């Protein structure tokens, strides 16, 4: 077994800064995972390789955050969603390109694609509707 791999939180964000949405693929059972893991969630083997997701998917659910934590107080209200990527896995992201004062405009099932926004010191995963 190889313990010394780099499927780390840091690597995910390093890739995100390069506008790449990276997860892993299990070399044993082909299971796709994002964010990257060190052990396959399906077959429990630690035999993985990087896998790049296209970033396209459909909105599985969402919320509009009105009461925000300290660091994001100025940004509220903002929208969050969970997106089902076309490759299968789901992931959480900020939803941009729709305004929070019209929640009816945000539809579960609408197709979205990944975007990468800069916030404070880090790159944040976001999704915006496909028009």
């Amino acid at each position: 077994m190889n313990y010394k791999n780099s499927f780390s939180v840091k690597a995910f964000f390093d890739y995100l800064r390069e506008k790449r949405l990276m997860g892993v693929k299990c070399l044993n059972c082909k299971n796709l995972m994002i964010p990257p893991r060190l052990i396959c969630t399906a077959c429990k083997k630690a035999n993985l390789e990087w896998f790049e997701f296209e970033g396209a998917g459909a909105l599985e659910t969402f919320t509009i955050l009105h009461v925000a934590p300290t660091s994001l107080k100025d940004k509220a209200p903002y929208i969050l969603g969970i997106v089902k990527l076309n490759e299968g896995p789901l992931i959480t992201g900020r939803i941009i390109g729709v305004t929070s004062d019209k929640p009816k405009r945000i539809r579960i099932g609408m197709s979205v694609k990944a975007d990468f926004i800069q916030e404070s010191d880090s790159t944040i995963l976001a999704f915006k509707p496909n028009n």
Partner: protein
Amino acid sequence: MLMNKVALIGAGMTRFHHSLHKDKSSRELFVEAFLECLDSVDKSISHKDIDALFISATASEFFEHQSHIACLLSDWTGLNPIPATRIEAACASSSAALEIGVFAIASGMYDIVLVGGVEKMTTLEVDEMTYALMSGLDHPYECILGVSNPGLYAMMANAYFEKYDSSWEELTSISIKNHHNASMNPKAHFQSEIMDIAKKISQKKGLKFDNEMDFLKSPTNPYIAHPLRLFDCSPVSDGASAILLASSKKAKKFTDTPVYVTGLGHTSGTMSLHDRRDLTSIPASVEAGNRAYKMAKIESKDIDFAMVHDCFTPAEIIATEDLGFFPRGEGGKAAIEGRTRINGEKSINTDGGLKAKGHPIAATGTAMSYEVWKQLRGEADKRQVNNAEIGLIHNVGASGGTAIVQIFRR
């Protein structure tokens, strides 16, 4: 195996409240619950009878810059030098502590163990408190994005509405019922019906609300995380709760009416909400329930009453489905039809739930057991469930990364 090996012989809790405990810190809150717990033991108990302490505080690091709190509380209760260990599993912390207390006794190591939890939350402003509790989520993959606990349950609610063609109106049945139950609970944070609160506000602000729905839909009930509004959320409360556990052999020395632990279920879910394929259920709750039923050798229909984790209103609906009380998609309808009120088909959150009784995070699990203790001993006063014989508690950590179900009988 473990079934009926351990019993509750005492229970105590502070009132849960946002301002009443302003001048108290965790240690004073917990001592208050502890003293009531000692007093509740029918045939009296003394310090030297207690062998160990498993205590929870969920985020005392942020609220009071205090960790190592089990040691502190062992010292402040006068129980020092008994072993003292802090247990943390987010909002399910003190039910995890109770479970470990059961293991410790059943192992033969101890006869009597004190378990409980305390949370002093009101030291922080709402935005800071929101961030503190976000430490229970996946930091890089949820927290950094600004996902809060209400945000996660809001996303579950929207997924549920979509799947079952339901809407926010269904959720109000939960808060209305739980405020009603809390109005009969002297330990509850809120002790008034929603309409009473609405009337108070309307008098003060010169507004007028025709009925509960009129109030709940008004800007006086603002959005926290759409579709969830203020009255969909449990309040911020300070509080503590404590339970004394004893081996069933020793229990009779302290009380003629012990409450037995008959079922334990505890499972971990994925840390992130997005790692679950169906967002309208909490898989860890389903599995924890099944494990607890199996150990107790019963089915969900045998449960007379249950305290379920209603940190936000959709959580109660999902919980009553996950635990098998109602079919999928029908938890909200059951509440609307009154089937979950006290002495309805299944009495749910007789104490007012987290929503109205309050949710000082680490005090919540053993406060649920406190209500079960009261109910099974017939001491729940106006909230009493008739012929209460089997009670259940269901305690969830964050969005379902932890789920604990415990079953008790008299």
